[in-house]
Structure formats: C-alpha cells, structure tokens
C-alpha cells in the first residue's frame, strides 16, 4: 500500500489538541463558567482550523492512498504501533467530527443543560472529540480499539449527569451494551491477529493477511466484529439502547451521538471488518442486508408510534442507519459510496433535528407531540428550519439525505460478488417502502407540530386554574437566537451544498472505495 507522509504531524496535532484545552481548564476554577465556555470554543475552533488545514493539504487526486501517514513505535511487545493516516473514506468523517464539536460548543454558550457545571461538561466533550477523531485516523487495530473506547466514559457521563429524568438507566444501558460489543470485538481482533500470524496489528498487514485465512474461521471472527460494530451502529436487534440514550441525553450529547458516534460502527465495518475478512463479509452480507432492512421498517414503524419528538428522531436514526448498512451489505462500490455519503448526511441532518428538538424543549419545556402545534405561527423561522430538516431527513432530492438513501437502494438491485440477487431485490423493494414510511412519519411530525393554531397552553391566554407544573404560558417561546443561528447555519448550508452537488464528497471517497472493493474482490475466490 502506498502512503504519503507529507505533513504527518497534522493528524496527531489535530487529534490531541483538545487535550490542551482540558489541561487549561483544570487550572480555571469551576465557578468561572464563562471562561470554560470560551476555552471550549477556542480549543475546538483551533482544532477545526487544523482540520481545515488538513483538508487543504490533502491531495485529492490520490485519495485512495493513506496521507499524512505516520508510524512510530508504541507497544512494541505486542506489535502494536502508533500508525495513523487519512484517506478518502475517513477524511469526511474526521472533519465532520471537528465541525460538529465546534458547533456544539457554540450552542452550549446559551444552552447549558440544567445540571450546570460547564467545566466538567466541556472537558468531557473535548475528550470525546479526541476519541472520535482518533478512531478515524487510527490505522492499527489496537490503537483503533483504544480510541473507540475513549468515547465511552465521556458519553456515559454526559447522558448520566446532564440528561433527562431517566438518565441513569439510559446511560448505564448505553455503557453496558457498548462494553459488551467491544469485549467481543476485542476477542475477534486478537483472533484475527493470531490466525493471520501478521507481523503487526496495522490495518495494512491484517488486510493483506486476513484474506488468506480459512473461510470458516473468517466467518467466526466476522461474527465477533459484527456484534461489536452492530451495537454501535446500532443495527436491529441491538438497537434498544439508542432510543433511551438519545431521548435522555442532553441536546449536545444527542447531536454528537447521532452525528459521529454511530458512525464509528459503520466506519468499523467499512474500514476493518469487510476488507480484512472478505469471505466472512460475503457470508455475512445477506444477514446484514436483512437486518438492515428490518431496521428500516422497524425504525419507521417505531417512529409512527412515538409521542415524544426526540424519541421519534431517535427511532428515525435506526431507520437511516439501516439504509447505510444496506448499502454496505451489497459490497458494491456504489453501495459503499452511498453508505459513506449517508453517514455524513445522516450526521448533518439528524444532528440538526436533535438541535431543533433541544431548542423546542427549551422553549416549550415539553417534547410531547400532542401538545405542540402552530410553531410556524409562534416562531416562524424555527418552524421553517424544522420543515427543512424534516424534508432533508425524508430524502428529498436536492438535499443531502437523498444521496445517502437513493443510491443505497439502487445498489441493492445488483449486489456484488455473486450475492443472492433475488434476496437483494426483495430487500430493495422493502427498503423503498421504508422511504415512504419515512415521509409519513416526518411529515406527520411536522404537520402536528408546526401547522395549525398554537396550543392555547402556550399562548399566555390559557386559564391559570389548570396550571400544571410545567405550564408557563409560553413565556420562554421566542424565535431562533443569534447563537443558534451561528451553530445551525453551517449545518443548513452543508445539507444544501451536498444535496445539490454530491460530487464534492463522492469524488473524495470514490477512489478509496474502489480500491477497497477491489481488495475485497481479490480475497474472494
């Protein structure tokens, strides 16, 4: 594998820079909340600046090669190295993680969750960013595993401390599910290492040697990785932690969870499981495809049954990740490209929807769909943005969501490597039905919350006699604030830009995906 080693300090700096912010915050007393928020914003802005510099230095003509490649000794005894690099597959996600963290930091300026203590909250977010960025640059299984796990604790605390009423249950469920997945995943990683007798844990060596293992062994090892990554994605039937975690998490947590953390699972499939175990992947592909489609339908039906706006968006994540996994399961260039696009698009759109849910909650102190109505009258701008995000989420052509779903469905028409065509075409039809359901639940959500007259409860004319605990007569209802504009505009622009000109991202990813599929093909006799 060819690598480019120019500027190979960039990734290390970009990944670990947030820790500088954490170190600074340790010396500022917790009572100085403003300073902590400032440090958070400045640090993540600096990190993003490094990210943009990386983007500029990236050689887009050779995006199939690992760039900014660095390889130094780390744990020599177990033959694991600090090997990092970036190619067309990881670049979009790497930069996305930085963008999302900065925007979430900005959003936090005005919208600190009720539990307070920005010092801990922002430090945890910065540590989270290290884990996320690190997972996307790691080119060594053990290193990947470490970064993959680093995100666990900060997210646990974010949900558990700053979350909703049921936060302790939700955070523990999230933690244990993920822990279970990663324990099995680790066993699979080690099994892969010993079965290949590879000279190191680097992705490159394992991808070369992995294809040579017996088919049966590959199938078993793939099973271990499958559980680890499928919990993270999450795929049906491992998804049950997600609605709880999303619903209970603070807005910031939900956004990061939806935009980045879920992608670690799908990224793991694309980067690790499939290229390293081609025959295992082929054997498991139909299972993945079927579970993905079940996820699409189940997620959509789940959405239709929800009465809570945030929970509805959470279930829609299950459905959207189903499309991503369907794309991956076809093992075609087209499908994997679609999946990678879908990952970024879902990150932007669902992240946006969670921001909106957070802001609605902030204003109405409830997310019960039945009590919300007439947003377009009470806060027209926020109502329009919600409409825009809902349209993007249901896959309206011209917005980013479309390019994740439509090609994934299309790819299932003609799966690669002799996968069962009849099965995949059936899956295709069912998945297409899923898009109709998606339109149904999103439009239904929008119709009930945004249209109609505002609920008298929140218009200030409501009789005081029946005052419930959270009845505040809509005193907090106001339109989009400047901070929200700053945090949201980049999302909105990106959704339009990638929707109108998807080539921007496909161009970066395609060479890398082609190389990947070629390698998989070489491993399947």
């Amino acid at each position: 594998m060819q690598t480019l080693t120019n500027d190979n300090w960039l990734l290390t700096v970009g990944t670990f820079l947030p820790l500088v912010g954490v170190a600074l915050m340790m010396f500022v007393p917790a009572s100085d909340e403003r300073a902590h928020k400032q440090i958070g914003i400045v640090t993540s802005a600096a990190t993003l600046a490094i990210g943009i510099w990386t983007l500029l230095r990236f050689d887009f003509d050779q995006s199939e090669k690992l760039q900014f490649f660095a390889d130094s000794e780390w744990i020599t005894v177990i033959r694991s190295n600090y090997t990092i690099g970036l190619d067309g597959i990881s670049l979009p996600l790497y930069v996305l993680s930085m963008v999302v963290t900065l925007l979430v930091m900005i959003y936090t300026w005005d919208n600190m969750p009720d539990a307070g203590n920005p010092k801990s909250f922002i430090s945890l977010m910065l540590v989270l960013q290290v884990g996320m960025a690190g997972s996307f640059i790691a080119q060594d299984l053990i290193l990947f595993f470490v970064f993959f796990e680093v995100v666990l604790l900060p997210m646990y605390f974010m949900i558990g401390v700053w979350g909703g009423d049921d936060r302790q249950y939700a955070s523990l469920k999230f933690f244990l599910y993920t822990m279970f997945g990663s324990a099995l995943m680790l066993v699979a990683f080690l099994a892969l290492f010993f079965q290949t007798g590879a000279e190191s844990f680097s992705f490159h060596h394992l991808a070369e040697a992995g294809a040579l293992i017996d088919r049966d062994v590959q199938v078993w090892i793939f099973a271990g990785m499958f559980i680890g990554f499928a919990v993270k994605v999450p795929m049906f039937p491992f998804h049950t932690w997600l609605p709880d975690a999303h619903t209970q998490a603070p807005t910031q947590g939900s956004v990061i969870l939806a935009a980045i953390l879920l992608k670690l699972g799908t990224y793991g499939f694309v980067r690790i499981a499939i290229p390293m175990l081609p025959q295992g992947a082929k054997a498991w592909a139909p299972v993945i495809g079927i579970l993905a489609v079940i996820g699409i339908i189940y997620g959509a039906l789940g959405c239709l049954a929800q009465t809570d706006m945030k929970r509805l968006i959470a279930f829609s994540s299950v459905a959207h990740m189903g499309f991503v996994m369907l794309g991956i399961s076809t093992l075609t260039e087209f499908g994997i490209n679609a999946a990678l696009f879908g990952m970024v698009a879902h990150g932007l759109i669902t992240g946006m929807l969670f921001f909106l849910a957070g802001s609605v909650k902030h204003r109405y102190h409830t997310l019960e769909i039945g009590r919300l109505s007439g947003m377009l009258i009470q806060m027209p701008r926020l109502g329009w943005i919600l409409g825009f995000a809902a349209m993007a989420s249901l896959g309206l052509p011209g917005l980013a969501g479309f390019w994740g779903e439509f090609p994934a469905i299309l790819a299932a028409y003609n799966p690669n490597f002799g996968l069962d065509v009849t099965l995949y075409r059936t899956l295709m039809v069912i998945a297409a039905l899923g898009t109709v359901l998606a339109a149904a639940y999103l439009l239904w959500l929008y119709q009930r919350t945004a249209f109609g007259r505002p609920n008298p409860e929140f218009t200030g004319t409501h009789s005081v006699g029946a005052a419930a605990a959270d009845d505040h007569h809509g005193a907090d209802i106001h339109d989009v604030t400047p901070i929200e504009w700053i945090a949201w505009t980049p999302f909105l622009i990106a959704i339009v830009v990638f929707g109108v000109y998807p080539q921007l991202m496909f161009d970066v990813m395609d060479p890398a995906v082609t190389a990947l599929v070629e390698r998989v093909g070489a491993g399947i006799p």
Partner: protein
Amino acid sequence: MITALLAQAWQAPTIDWHAIAPELVLVVGINLVLFIDLWLDESKKWAMATLSGMVLLGAFVPVVTLAVVGGDVRDAIFDGRYMIDEYALVMKGLFLLVGYVVVLMSQTELEEGGYYQGEFYVLLLVSILGMVMMASSRDLLSVFVALELLSIPAYMMAAWRKRDPKSNEAGVKYYLLGVFASGVLLYGMSLLYGTTGTTKLTEIGAALAIGDPSVMQVLAVVLVITGFAFKISAVPFHTWAPDTYQGAPTPVTAFLSVASKAAGFTALLTVLYLALHGATGVHEPYIWVLAALTMTIGNVVALRQTNIVRMLAYSSVSQGGFILMPLAVMATDAAESALRAVVIYLLIYAFSNLGAFCVIMAVARKTRSGEISSFGGLMGYAPGLGVLMTIFLASLAGIPPLGIWIAKLQSFRALIDAGSTAAYALALIAAVNTVIAAAYYMRVLRQIWMAPAPDGDTSPIVVPPPIRLALAITAGGTVVLGILPGLVLRFADLPDLTGALGL
C-alpha cells in the same frame, strides 16, 4: 583447634552479598524500627512511618542496581534454590513499591486511630520481607517459609483495630482459613517430595515430565494449587476475603488485596512454571475451572454489594480470576504470553486497586461511612477525588487508555494465542464478565457523578499529605502505564521461568 575442625567439617558457602542486599536491608530495617520504637516517646511515633518508608525505598536501591548490573551476580545462589533473576527482581520491585504506598496510606490512619504504630510497621515490613523472599524462592521449603513469613504478620494486621469486633472477626477468619490452606499446601508439597524425592522445583519439574503423573502426583498438584488458591482468594476458596477485607483497617485491606495476592500469584507462577508444568492434564483444567468460577462468581456477588470495601473485595476476587485466566493455557505455545499477562496484570492492578483504596480512605475520613451511597455528590464538593476515583474504577473496568486495559488485553491475547476451544470458551466467559464488572464499577461512578450528597454536607475534604503522595503515585502509574504500557511490558519478558519449559 575447634576452628580447624570446623573449617574441615563445615565450609562456609560463598554468599553473593549484593544479590541478597534487598533482603538484608529489610532485615536491618526491621530491627531498627523495632528498637527505635522501644525508646521513642509516644508523641514522636509518627517518625516510625517515615523510617519504614525509608527502609522500603532503601531496599529498592539494590533491586535497581541488581537489575542494572545484570549477568553473573544474578546467578543462582544456594544451589539454584534461591534465584535472583529478572522475574524475581520485577516482583521484588513491585512488593517494595506497594509496601511504600501502604505505609503512606497507614500513616494518618494509625496516628488518628491511636493504634500501636511501631509494631504495625514492624509486622508490615516482615510481611514484605516474606514477599521479597517469595519472589526468589525456587524450592518447596523456601516457598513455604516465605509464604508463612508473609502471612502470619498479615493475620495480626487484619485484627489491628482490636476494639472493633469486625476487625477481630477479620483477623480470626483470615488466620483460621489461612492456616488451613497452609496445611493443604504442605500436604501437597509432602506428596510431591515423596513421589519425586526432591524439594527443588526444577528437579520436581524434570521428574514430573517423565511419563504420566501417578495418582499421588495428581493429588499433590491439585492440593498445591488449592493451597495457593486460598491465598489468591480464588472461588470457591475465597470466603475469607470479603469479611477480612471489610473488617480490617483500610490500608491493611489494600495491602492484602494487592501485595498478598500478588505474592500468592508469584508463588503459584514459580511452582507452576518450574515444577508442575509436566503434569499438563491436571493443572490446566483445574485452573480453567477456578478462573471461570472466580471471575463469574466474584462479579455476580459484587453486583449486590452496598458497602464499597466489600464490593472492592469481591471485585478483587474477580480480578483474580482474570489474572488466573492465562494460566489455564500455560502448557501450550502460549506459555510465554501467559506468564507475561499475569506479571503485567499484577504490576498494573497494584496501582489501580491501591489508588481506589486511597480515595476510599480519603472520603471515609469525612463521611465516616463505607456505604457506596456515601459517595453521592463527590464530584460536587471534591472534584479532584471524584476524577481520581473515576480513573481508578474505569481502569479496573478495563477501559482504555487506563492501566488495566493493557493487562486485560494481554490476558485475552494469551488465551487466543493458545487457540484451543477451551481457551476461546474461557475468553468468551471473560468477555461477558468484563461487562458485568463494568456494571458495578459504573454504579459507584454514578453515585460520584450523578447523585446528590446524602446528608447535604458539601464541605470540602482535606486530604492529608501522605495520602496525596500515594494518590499521585497510583494515579500517575494508572494513567501513564495505560498510555505507554511499553514502560513495564518489557519487565514481563521473562525467559528465566519459561526457559525451563524448553521453549
């Protein structure tokens, strides 16, 4: 005349003084502490802690010089029955360091509790001397003597709070079961000696390697392992541990759960690798079952505990299962990986577990309670201790990049390196157990981060300087070794022991 006769009849062995310098420093130190304590005024007893700490650090110096000099001085002395090899030095270093941290932890506890200070430190040093000797023992007799030397003072230390019935119970229980275990062990050793005709471990190993083991030998192997299983509190021989841990003074609990356990493992490792490796079909399945039971039952019972020390006791039982796990495959190609896994686990586990006990002590000084619920709101009024406890418990749960993840990884690695079905099955059991373990560690963290202070008392905690130092050492070790495990991993490359297997 007599001297001439003596010179004929008895020839003094050539003793390499440098090689046994750590033991000598300890012996001199023990006597110093004992005598100075006799003449010291009650108000100046605090000096004993400092002196004991100096003795331990003093003994650490020759360990380092021996490691640096290497080569010939480390050769066998006393006919290969007492070795100063790399393995011995690494374990000695560990025991001395743990001893030092325990002294730091004991200082305030003993001063404030009005306990006998001088005597306590003498016993602690004697126990550590036993451990240091254990690391070098390569003969059934010296193994047994070292084991008793390290255990007997510990029985007394467990009952140190003598006006507290729980502490008395702790001491008595520990003593009775400990003595019983010694008996079992001794019986096994006598059978080994009877069937092989030697007490030297390597010779026993050679004798056992010839042909299938006889019934007597099978019994001997099982009894010897059972004897050590008590010491490392492996299920079903763990029943003393929770009561003893809960009743004993906290520093003693920390000492028992880390140093004493490590010493038990040291002995088990030496005996397994040098003497019993030939009896493959016997010890492997036995240890497999012990490991699986230990980690599972330790974890499941820990889930239900409401007292933090008791929870950590069961957690330490289950950690013992993880440490034991690679030994279930030690007779395969994975022998080296297994040894490395155990040693590295002991080294890193020491930091995280001691650290957790330090935080418990610091918090209990304020709350005067050992309940998990007393940790509520810690993040609010003592964020420093809260973060430290998070680091220690997350490390114990095996979350990278904190200390124990690399040890867990090594254990899994050894199993998968062996590659047999039994090994994979044990690895899966262990994987499920990591999740169960995470559940109870997270429960404590949940109290620390998410619950309010139980009685609304949010006055800050004053951490005394010795505990501060102990926390700094343990937290530093946990974090640094987690990120750069290479620093200690090379200490676990120990050809001296595996060399006997002819690998």
